[in-house]
């Protein structure tokens, strides 16, 4: 594999950043990545979550994927699990909404009610 040298430099950089990192994940964002989610655009939603979290230097939030959450007609869907056990389900997402959720829910701890499954089903 070429550019192994490059990888070594990346490693040094990552190592420096890691030492100042709080590695304990407290909040989990889970994006539905089954056929229904992907077809509806879940990939860009997930990329937006990851990118926004990285951009804001948020260190205690993890992003992962799961299969079908069971509400295919409302995809893309993401669930946010907080350390205190609270769960929020966001539906019909796009990249822009994902960024807003990071800003308002993750950073300011105010869930974006209008994007939740509760609001969509009303």
């Amino acid at each position, binding site marked *: *594999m070429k550019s192994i040298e490059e990888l070594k430099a*990346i490693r040094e950089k990552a190592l420096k950043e890691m030492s100042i990192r709080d590695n304990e994940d407290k909040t989990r964002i889970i994006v539905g*990545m089954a056929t229904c989610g992907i077809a509806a655009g879940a990939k860009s939603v997930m990329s937006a979550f990851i990118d926004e979290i990285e951009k804001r230097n948020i260190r205690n939030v993890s992003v992962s994927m799961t299969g079908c959450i069971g509400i295919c007609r409302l995809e893309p869907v993401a669930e946010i699990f907080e350390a205190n056990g609270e769960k929020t389900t966001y539906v019909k997402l796009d990249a822009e909404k994902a960024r807003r959720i990071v800003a308002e829910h993750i950073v300011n701890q105010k869930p974006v009610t209008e994007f939740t499954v509760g609001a969509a089903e009303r």
Partner: protein
Amino acid sequence: MKDISLHLMDVAQNSIVAEADRIIISMRILNNLNKLLVEIVDNGRGMDPEFLKEAADPFKTSRTTREVGLGIPLLKQSAEMAGGEFSLESEPLKGTKLNASFKIDHIDRIPLGDIAGTVGLLIKVNPNISWLIRFTSPDNEFILDTDEIKRQLDGVPIEDNNVIEWIQNTISNGVKSVFGGVLDEVD
């Protein structure tokens, strides 16, 4: 699905659900064949012959076996509508091998899409899986092996964003060097 990268994202999910810890994604263009071969091999729990027969049939999938739903039939459709073929081999406890081919110049062939972004995401959120990515054309080959990368990283997690960014750039260059000039959509 509007491109091959989205299909990869989708069917890789089947391998992950099947608890594979090694997934090989390979895309090949062979000499004079006008064909793009996409292959995904995993060492997951596999499927028994009964299930395998039905995996490509959207209407045979029951809810208890929902990890294979529409994903496989949709990929089969994408391949066949571009003059290609689709096959699925599997052995319980050994793993599954999926093959889809596409006629390169067929008007209905879907483009590669964002392969680098997709694979980067897959690696980032499934860092414990060993991923082998291989692109082959008559003149060129590209291999990315996350086991090798992990050895080089020596303790730095592969899901670190600096590393993922490097992986995505590397794959993106790989796509260009292997498929550039061969597939219309690649510069």
